[in-house]
């Protein structure tokens, strides 16, 4: 079954990689460095909550979190397979990686759906 969906997995890896490449640097810089270190003021709870009310924001966040997770799953699976030569565990690794990505996506979808 894995073989039949390989093109899909590669497409999601590519999409996730593009999302991560285009958007993660700025998000990580702001949320991970600029805001905690006080270089810039972090957005208030109210402003973020207001943003979250827009369905566009929710869609954006869904894409921002879920696609890169699938990017990681695909890439990490091959890194373990080739890098550590774990060929005998290939099915287990695939299930764990893609499974984790699916779980993360589900959690994101659930949170975004149930925002008050």
């Amino acid at each position, binding site marked *: 079954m894995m073989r039949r969906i390989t093109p899909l997995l590669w497409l999601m890896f590519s999409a996730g990689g593009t999302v991560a490449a*285009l958007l993660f*640097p700025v998000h990580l810089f702001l949320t991970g*460095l600029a805001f*905690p270190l006080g270089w810039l003021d972090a957005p208030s709870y109210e402003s973020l909550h207001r943003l979250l009310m827009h369905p566009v924001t929710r869609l954006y966040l869904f894409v921002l979190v879920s696609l*890169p997770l699938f*990017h*990681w799953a695909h*890439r990490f699976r091959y890194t373990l397979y080739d890098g550590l*030569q774990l060929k005998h565990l290939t099915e287990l690794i695939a299930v764990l990686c893609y499974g984790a990505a699916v779980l*993360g996506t589900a959690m994101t979808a659930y949170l975004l759906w149930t925002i008050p």
Partner: protein
Amino acid sequence: MSTEPHYTLYHPRWYRRRVSVWWWLQNRSYTAFVLRELTSVFVAFFALVYLWQLRALVHGPEAYAQFLARLKTPRVLALDTVAFLFVLFHAITWFNLTPKAMVVRLRGKRVPDWVIVGLNYAAWLVLSGVVAFVLLRGR
């Protein structure tokens, strides 16, 4: 030859070296490649950080304040710095490799690689500006 070779494919006296599990340390290109692949771990890490932030936002202002406070601890800051460097490495290698996969032909001629790379970097700048604007607008 139209048929399979008539001699055995695996002659016992041929020497076959087994690939070492440290193959990726044997040469700089291979090591750079593995580092590039490992950027995906930090990509996943940050996706989870954002998922955590989303959870905090859903749970209310105190949870969000707690989230912001946790980000200020030195261990998380150090991790974020390393993650940022790896994510940058991912972005740069990704943009530089995009034209290899996406060959655009305009009126029969192939668009040169530097145009595709340039467009990617331009999109990066524009999108980063938009995101920064949206996030810094409501303080």
